[in-house]
């Protein structure tokens, strides 16, 4: 709580950005995002796009796992649904990208509702395993329904287009992905200022108590599943447009675990945490690649050890954060902020 910041009414208390300092910083952040592609080379722009896609998907999973308390190992499957929808639509209909992305999100949401149906009867780890089963089935469909998904070879697709403009380069894709990511995170933030979002949180904290308070469990759990898979579907669609090819192996189980890890490392039930976690987890492998490239002149074997090192670091990050920093990067971020806002006093 900052000094001199007494809230006069309920709207002010609920505002996303309450102080002028926050507003200025947020505007500055948006400006940086806008200018970023003009300032950096193609590699950083590529990374920016990857982070944007990861942020959307992680935010979606955060809604489901972090805020509603439903563990899902199906995020990659839902992204696959989105990716294949976009690929199929772009090959067969030539619809512009806002329409295909919307349809991708909606189809993923529909499948998410279907997968969420057992969530009334089973919860916790049983539910995680139900979503795992869903992702096994989805992978099977991607690989075997050849007339639609192209089998193991997958589908390749045309670049995204709108009003005669085509978005072929990473530079162009950046201006689709990042604004969408910003919008969708703000959208999620807004959800948690409404009855729906508070119902999600109530379900997470104690589902039986929430039901006694008059929250329709099935209704809200399914809504959470739908919302989360919508985000995953859009992220998967962007993934398809970005790499312009989707195969069953584009969306492996390890990707679901990756997003779960991003949510945990970032901080469960914290949107800022999800964003930080997505960026952090996406950039770790890239940082390791750079390190390997720097070491190769001295240790020619370095590239061989990169992939196992990545596995070890990935696992160690999950374990380390859970044991030593269960609230994730978001908590570290708050600590840093607190330090600066209280400096030179101690908190």
């Amino acid at each position, binding site marked *: 709580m900052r000094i001199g910041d007494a809230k006069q009414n309920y709207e002010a208390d609920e505002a996303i950005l309450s102080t002028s300092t926050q507003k200025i910083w947020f505007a500055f952040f948006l400006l940086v995002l806008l200018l970023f592609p003009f300032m950096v080379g193609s590699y950083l722009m590529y990374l920016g796009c990857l982070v944007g896609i990861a942020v959307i998907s992680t935010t979606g999973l955060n809604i489901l*796992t972090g805020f509603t308390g439903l*563990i899902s190992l199906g995020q990659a499957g839902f992204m696959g649904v989105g990716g294949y929808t976009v690929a199929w639509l772009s090959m067969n209909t030539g619809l512009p990208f806002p329409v295909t992305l919307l349809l991708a999100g909606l189809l993923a949401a529909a499948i998410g509702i279907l997968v969420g149906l*057992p969530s009334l*009867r*089973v919860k*916790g*780890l*049983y539910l*995680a*395993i*139900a979503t*795992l*089963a869903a992702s*096994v*089935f989805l992978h*099977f469909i991607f*690989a*075997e329904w050849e007339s639609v998904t192209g089998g193991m070879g997958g589908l390749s697709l045309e670049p995204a287009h709108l009003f005669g403009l085509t978005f072929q380069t990473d530079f162009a894709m950046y201006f689709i992905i990042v604004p969408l990511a910003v919008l969708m995170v703000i959208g999620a933030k807004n959800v948690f200022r409404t009855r729906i979002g508070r119902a999600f949180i109530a379900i997470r904290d*104690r589902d*039986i*108590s929430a039901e*006694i308070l008059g929250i329709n469990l099935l209704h809200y759990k399914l809504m959470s599943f739908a919302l989360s898979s919508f985000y995953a579907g859009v992220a998967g669609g962007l993934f398809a447009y970005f790499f312009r090819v989707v195969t069953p192996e584009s969306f492996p189980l390890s990707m679901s*675990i990756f997003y*779960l*890890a991003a949510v*945990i490392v970032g901080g469960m039930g914290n949107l800022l945490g999800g964003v930080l976690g997505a960026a952090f987890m996406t950039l770790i492998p890239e940082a390791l690649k750079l390190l390997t490239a720097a070491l190769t002149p001295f240790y020619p074997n370095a590239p061989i*050890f990169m*992939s*196992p*090192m*990545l*596995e*070890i*670091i*990935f*696992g*160690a*990050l*999950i*374990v380390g954060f*859970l*044991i030593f920093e*269960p609230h994730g990067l978001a908590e570290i971020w708050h600590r840093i902020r607190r330090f600066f806002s209280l400096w030179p006093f101690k908190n």
Partner: protein
Amino acid sequence: MDWLFFGEISLAGLAMGGLYALIALGFVIIYKATRVINFAIGEIMMFAAYLFLAFAGGMEMSPWIALPLAVLGGSILGGVIEKTLIRPMLGEPSISVVMVTIGIASILVGVVEFVWGADPQLLPRFLPRKPVFIGEMYLAPKIAYGFLIGSALLIVYLLYFRFSRGGVALRATASDQAAAYSMGINVRRVFNLSWVFGSLAASLAGVLVAATGGLSPQFGAIGLSVLVVVIVGGLDSIVGALVAGLFIGWLETVAGAYLGGQYRMPATFAVLAVILVFRPYGLFGTHEIERV
């Protein structure tokens, strides 16, 4: 329909299922005592199998010395994991504990790849090579002897948990932790030993499975099949682990033989989905009643 072929496939499936039952037993022991769902069980198996490879292949020990050493190594790994990484998570939400085991799995995969490389490897042969015939049905010797060794350990375990002091302590802890504490049972030790015993079963099964099918850092994926087994059987039921292990092993092999390899996972996961909808606590599991 070719009944002989069906019989042979079923036998091979049941034998594989016996090993699944053994792994599932390891899983259930850990779950019963500590309420931890161990996603790293496949990787513990893998680690033990690589240890066997190192002892028997690299150091050229006799397989019959290497096998107990590898199994011992796997059990110690389980105990160390419990002491250092699972203990601090006591009382945390179950999703966090599960994620810790997923993280451990990832670390183990990385370590194995680091030390032994990413390429698939074959274990030195140590099981008798004489073909086994049951009636007219042929059974691959590796699978048959693997099944026999696995069942032997399984029976030892069942007797141990039924009659020994340690087994009673484990069952007491599983049914009521607080009461077990007040009766003077060293619950921490039970936690630790359950991980050691669970990993021991998994390690032996790991070497036996790797002996039939080869070994690579992706070996831990077998953990997914075991997950199906324990959910179908009931997470806290030893009988369930046995029955479901045999059934899922059989189903997987039959589906693989008749429909093609890509149907193995969907077939077992379809059973899993049906079970989750109609009997979420598994065929033999305890139906927990939740109170606010």
